[in-house]
Every structure is written in C-alpha cells, then in structure tokens.
C-alpha cells in the first residue's frame, strides 16, 4: 500500500496536519481496489464544485473546520423545526429534494461550457439558512461518493460555498427585498438567483486563495477564476430563480399571497 503511494501523490508544497495525513492514507487504502478504474476514466469532466485533490491539505482541513459548526447548527435547527411544527416535515423534505434535482441538472450556458444550479434558495427562504447547511451537505456527499463530482477532501470547501454562503445570501436578499416591499415572487426570484451566484463567487475565492496568481496575487486570481465561473453562471442563476418561484408556488398553492412562505414553513395555518 505504501509502495503505491508514489511521489505523484505527494504535494511537496503542502504541509499536512496529522488529520489530513490520516485522511489521505484512508483514501489510498480505499482507492487500491479501484485504482485501475480511476486511471481508466481519469480526467473525466466534473462540474462546478472543487474537484477531489485540488485543494492543498491545509486548505481542505481549514474549510472543514469552518463548515463543521454550521452543519451541526443546521442539524439542531432541523430537529427543532420538526419538533415544533411537524406539518413542516414535508416541505423540509421537498426543499432537500429540490436541491437534489437541480444539482443533477447540468445546463449549457452562453460561454459554451456547462454548469448546474444549486437549488438551495428555496429552503433558505422558507426555513432560514441554517438547515440548508445540513441538506446541502447530504447532496454534496451523494455526488462526491457516487458521481466523483466534487470530492471528500474538498467537501468542507464545497459545503461552505454551496450549503452555507449561498443559503445565507439567499436568506438576506429575501429579507431585504421583502422589507423593501417587493412581491413574494420577485423576492424569491432574487434570493435564489443571487444565492446561486454567491456560491460560485465563493468557489472562485477559494480557488484563488489556494492558487494565487504569480504576478497579481490572490486578487488577480479571484478575477481569473471568477471570470471562468461567473459568466457561465449568470444565465443559469436566472433560470434557477425562475424555477424556484414555480416550485415555491406549486408547493404552497398560494401564489402571490403574502402568507405563501409562512404557510410553507408551517408558521401560518
């Protein structure tokens, strides 16, 4: 096994904390059976999340540390919502299902590349951003394990962008636009679309921190990675906003009514 861990696996720049070394050893053990398989389909296209092994170990561990408390808080919040308002269980599961569907839909964009929406805005608007940290983590874990999309070492970073920053931005936009007097539909559209964009902006920053540009530093790298993701993502985030409004209306059956979201979250009967 150690013989297999050839020099190609070693990244001399990354000083590894003990936990990351343990993880890496575990991965190699797991890979040994499927290693030929991995090689065969190596370089396969995966989309949007940071791919397995593309963050230095120190960054990977750091993003895990940042994300973990949010996921735990999300689990506690979820438990409380289910205990207080059992009638909200169906909507909670539907919010998770919506993220599940949208993350599976790889869509072509104007730049000639493909990406997928995140679908975290719906749950964030109805239940607040905390629960989406947990629901989004489940979706990311599924994709990392079964689709080689994203990765386990990069899970912390991907959770931070898709399941934490995206939902918090969605929720903030929702509160702000609703307070400014926008209709429910407009507020939901903006919340979902901007949450989607925020997710990919965060991914760009995460990559830039790991791979600062030789000449222009971290900031230059943010612009470079941002350019790759953002322009692709703008039309898709608009589509996501529209679809979120449609599904929200269908779930509540109260399109255009002021208490639409309250009914969904179980706060209004």
């Amino acid at each position, binding site marked *: 096994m150690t013989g297999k861990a050839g020099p190609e696996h070693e990244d001399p720049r990354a000083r590894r904390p003990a936990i990351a070394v343990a993880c890496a050893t575990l991965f190699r053990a797991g890979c040994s059976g499927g290693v030929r398989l991995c090689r065969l389909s190596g370089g396969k296209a995966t989309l949007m999340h940071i791919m*397995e092994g593309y963050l230095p170990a120190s960054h990977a561990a750091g993003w895990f540390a940042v994300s973990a408390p949010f996921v735990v808080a999300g689990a506690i919040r979820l438990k409380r919502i289910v205990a207080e308002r059992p009638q909200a269980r169906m909507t909670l599961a539907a919010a998770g299902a919506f993220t599940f569907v949208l993350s599976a839909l790889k869509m072509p964009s104007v730049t000639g590349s*493909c990406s997928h929406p995140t679908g975290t805005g719906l749950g964030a608007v109805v239940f607040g951003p905390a629960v989406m940290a947990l629901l989004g983590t489940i979706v990311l874990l599924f994709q990392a394990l079964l689709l080689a999309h994203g990765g386990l*070492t990069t899970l912390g970073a991907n959770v931070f962008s898709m399941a934490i920053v995206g939902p918090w931005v969605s929720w903030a936009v929702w509160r702000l636009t609703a307070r400014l007097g926008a209709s429910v539909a407009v507020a939901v559209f903006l919340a979902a679309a901007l949450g989607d964009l925020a997710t990919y902006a965060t991914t760009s920053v995460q990559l830039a921190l790991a791979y600062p540009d030789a000449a222009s530093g971290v900031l230059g790298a943010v612009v470079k990675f941002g350019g790759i993701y953002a322009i692709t993502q703008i039309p898709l985030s608009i589509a996501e906003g529209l*679809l979120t409004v449609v599904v929200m209306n269908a779930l509540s059956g109260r399109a255009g009514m002021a208490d639409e979201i309250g009914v969904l979250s179980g706060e209004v009967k």
Partner: protein
Amino acid sequence: MMAGHRSWGLIAAAAAIIAAPLVLPGLGGDFKGSDDLGTAAILQARPGYQPWVQPLWKPPSGEVESLLFALQAALGAGFLGYVIGRRQSSRRDDVAGR
C-alpha cells in the same frame, strides 16, 4: 388560474435561457464543464500539479455516470411531485368539506 399561467410562462422562460446557447448562432462552444476550465486554470498557474487524492470511486463510463445523474434527478423530482400532489388533493378536500 392566473398563477397557473404565470408558472407556465416562467417555465418557458427558463427553458429558453437554457436552450439559447444551443440554438443561437454565435453562442456556445463545446459545452465542457466549467470545472474543466477551472482545472485548466489551476494547471496554468501550477504546471504539473497532480491532485493529491483520487476519488474513492468513479462511474466506470459516461453512460453509468449519466444513469446516476438521471437517477438523482428522478428521485428528487418524483418526491417533489408527490408532495405537490398531496398538497393539492388535501386542499381540494378542504374546499369540498367546507
């Protein structure tokens, strides 16, 4: 009823946004994943970079991968449809019972 019409309008708009790069001349390209481009940018910044771990398991082919993606979408959409249908029928019962 108005809400129903609006929903179809929104769905049509979303479909148009997704279809536009495929059918409009001058737009589009080879429709690779933007992660591929991200990876290319990483390799440009760090030539010769090797990922330090490989995924535990990868779908053995594009066909199996698309099967799993389709399964993911089908499970989610199926459940969403179930919840929407349940809500609608319970509302109808409410109205009928009143």
